[in-house]
């Protein structure tokens, strides 16, 4: 192992009440490819933004090559030899590749001298790039090569890559790994952020694992199994939920039979042959790493998107495969999408008007003229019953904090007394107290005889709430299995490898 390049000690960064990084320590050596692992929201991106000078830590110290430094800007970080390849590309769409490379290089323009240097560098690392094409005409893989080349032009001693393979094909990913191995062999230290564990085990010699903003482990990923890594990432903590009274399960309220759905998005996932049943009184959770088809499944169940290729969706026994969201609401279904602002609510509309969004379907707001007295009454009742903290009696949706807005949205749907409740990411970006409140509300709803389906990337949440858990991987849903019999390690493996591979390994 080469000399120490970076030492982070006690890095802490809070956004309001949320501690995104809590006393994080990390060391990176020359020639090392070091993985930074963790679930969404574990604090990986925050830590990397601090190291790249985009965010200032509240406390803690950064040492580069043994020297203590402050990094007030990305420029300062680059001057210290730190390069970064962003998860969401930071390229300029209307500019050519060469211009994009010139922008962060002090004192350079997109001229012939730079072109010659870039071409030499590209040859050395085996990166094929058309330098004169505008970026918006290039594929995701080509764009990433520009980002990497741009970082390499600055001769970085440390290169940070934030989930670099999430948009790449397997071949492109292999080419990327070859480039990174060359770079490491030449003495650079590489920080590789990912939640694809197989990749990490293939490429990295060390791994630091973050959970809830804290370092929970530092290990050699090649010496432990993917399942062990997954267990470290998702943790063992439990939430303080009140147990609900024993209750019997009733008839099936949501049934998916052999459902296959073609995606409408560019990077969307096609759903294949999905079977799932949720019965009255039951809470089922769908776990999985983001981007494995959960959003597409939510859209298919709510009737908002995707083209059904085969199979059917039944709500309360009726075939609703070809019917819209309001028809599904009329059968007693309620939907809480992942995007609270813009999809679940109109940001600029007051809470009373936002009642209309889902309530107008049931017809109780008046046939021709809207009953504004009633919408106001509903909003007030939701605010009171679900403990929504508001700055004024009827504020705009955008004025509420994430947790309070989510309580409002969940409450608004529960006030409709649904028989089936489908919630996508119930506590995404919500503080712990509001999250527990929302989970409890959903458990109580199931205890009162409704069917509840929760889609969650947070495995702690899924384990704490669900009677059964199914795991989404690559557009396929595993069979839902009862929670007490299902271990965290098994779920982790299903999340990473999918059902068939996991069965083969077991």
């Amino acid at each position, binding site marked *: 192992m080469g000399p120490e390049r970076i030492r982070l000690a006690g890095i802490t960064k809070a956004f309001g009440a949320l501690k995104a990084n809590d006393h994080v320590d990390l060391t990176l050596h020359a020639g090392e490819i070091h993985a930074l692992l963790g679930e969404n929201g574990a604090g990986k991106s925050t830590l990397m933004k601090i190291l790249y*000078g*985009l*965010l*200032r830590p509240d406390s803690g110290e950064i040492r580069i090559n043994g020297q203590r430094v402050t990094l007030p*800007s*990305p*420029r*300062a*970080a*680059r001057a210290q030899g730190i390069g970064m390849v*962003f998860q969401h*590309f*930071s*390229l*300029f*769409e*209307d*500019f050519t590749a060469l*211009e994009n490379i*010139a*922008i*962060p290089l002090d*004192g*350079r*323009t*997109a001229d012939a001298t730079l072109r010659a240097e870039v071409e030499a560098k590209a040859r050395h690392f085996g990166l094929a790039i058309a330098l004169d094409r505008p970026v918006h005409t290039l594929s995701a893989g080509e764009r990433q090569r520009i980002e990497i080349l741009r970082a390499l032009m600055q001769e970085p001693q440390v290169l940070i890559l934030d989930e670099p393979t999430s948009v790449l094909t397997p071949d492109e990913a292999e080419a990327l790994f070859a480039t990174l191995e060359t770079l490491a062999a030449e003495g650079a230290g590489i920080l590789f952020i990912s939640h694809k564990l197989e990749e990490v085990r293939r490429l990295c010699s060390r791994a630091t694992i973050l959970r809830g903003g804290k370092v929970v482990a530092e290990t050699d990923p090649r010496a432990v199994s993917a399942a062990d890594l997954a267990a470290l990432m998702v943790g063992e903590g439990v939430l303080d939920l009140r147990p609900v009274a024993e209750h019997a399960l009733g008839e099936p309220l949501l049934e998916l039979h052999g459902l296959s759905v073609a995606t409408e998005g560019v990077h969307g996932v096609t759903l294949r042959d999905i079977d799932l049943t949720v019965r009255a009184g039951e809470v089922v959770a769908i776990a999985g790493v983001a981007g494995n088809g959960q959003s597409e499944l939510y859209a298919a169940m709510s009737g908002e998107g995707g083209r059904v290729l085969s199979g059917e969706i039944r709500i309360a026994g009726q075939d609703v495969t070809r019917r819209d969201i309001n028809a599904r609401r009329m059968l007693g279904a309620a939907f809480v999408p992942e995007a609270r602002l813009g999809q679940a609510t109109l940001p600029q509309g007051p809470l009373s008007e936002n009642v209309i969004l889902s309530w107008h379907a049931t017809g109780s707001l008046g046939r021709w003229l809207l009953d504004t007295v009633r919408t106001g009454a509903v909003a007030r009742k939701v605010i009171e019953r679900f403990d929504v903290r508001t700055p004024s009696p009827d504020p705009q949706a955008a004025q509420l904090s994430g947790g309070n807005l989510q309580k409002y949205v969940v409450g608004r749907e529960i006030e409709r007394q649904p028989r089936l409740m489908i919630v996508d990411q119930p506590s995404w970006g919500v503080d712990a107290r509001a999250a527990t409140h929302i989970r409890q509300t959903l458990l109580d709803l199931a205890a009162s005889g409704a069917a509840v389906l929760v889609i969650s990337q947070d495995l702690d949440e899924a384990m704490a709430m669900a009677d059964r858990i199914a795991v989404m991987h690559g557009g396929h849903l595993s069979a839902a299995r009862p929670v007490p019999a299902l271990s965290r390690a098994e779920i982790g493996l299903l999340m990473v490898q999918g059902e068939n591979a996991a069965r083969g390994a077991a």
Partner: protein
Amino acid sequence: MEMLPFILATVFTAATPLLIAALGEHVTERAGVLNLGVEGMMIVGAATGFAAAVLTDSSVFGIFAGALAGMALSAVFALMVLVFATNQVATGLALTIMGLGLAGLIGQGFVGQPRAALPPVQIPLLSEIPVLGKALFTGDFVFFLSLALIGLVAWGLNRTRFGLLLRAVGENHGSAHALGLPVKRIRLVAILFGGLLAGLAGAYLSLIYTRFWSPGMSAGRGWIALALVVFAGGHVWRLVLGAYLFGGITVAQLHAQAGAIGLPSQFLSALPYLMTIAALLFLSISGRKGAGAAGSLGQPFVPER
């Protein structure tokens, strides 16, 4: 043929204020800032320039004073949109309204006073070329300055590092910030440059074009300059072409009125403005959506910290 050099010269005189103001706004918009206050900055430049020229008895000094007045007004705009991240459209409109009022106040004591013309600059030898020589190489110094500005803006935006960064900031301020470019500082420079040129264009109006001051004399030229920037779609050469085309229409309608073709004079006076609308319509129908505009044009920039 006696008339041609004279007509060409008047076309250039009519086009020059449009060209100068549009070049300034072009730079501002390339940096991603939409300043609808061009009309206001122009008229304040016209009033201040005229007042300063009368008080110091120097039209040259007046022209520089007018340019600085336009820049001062744009500094107010910069403070609002960069520091307080206000809505650029609303702020720009407010700037125009404020400018019109402010100009009336500044110019109050100077209405109707005439100014002598500036001595023309003649380029030796070239100005002796028959017909074109007189039109192209004889003129006021601001006309020649405007030609230099065309080159400066085109070269500066496309060939210099500052131009590259300015366009990058306009294209995507989020990415620019992530790469550590000083988004607000670059935009400040672009806004001030736009204000300086709008003020210069205004001073040209009152001190060279009409040579008197009257309230509201900019008569919508700031808006035409804004339309020219849209028409140019990011290309300086199209902006120059458009400016001289509009100059030509303005002069043509004057001659048409004098020559009494059977069209109402009101229609002919309205022609430049109708052409503006027609050009914008043509562009929005033919081009792809938002053709040529900078990617983050008009969006407030608020970095996380």
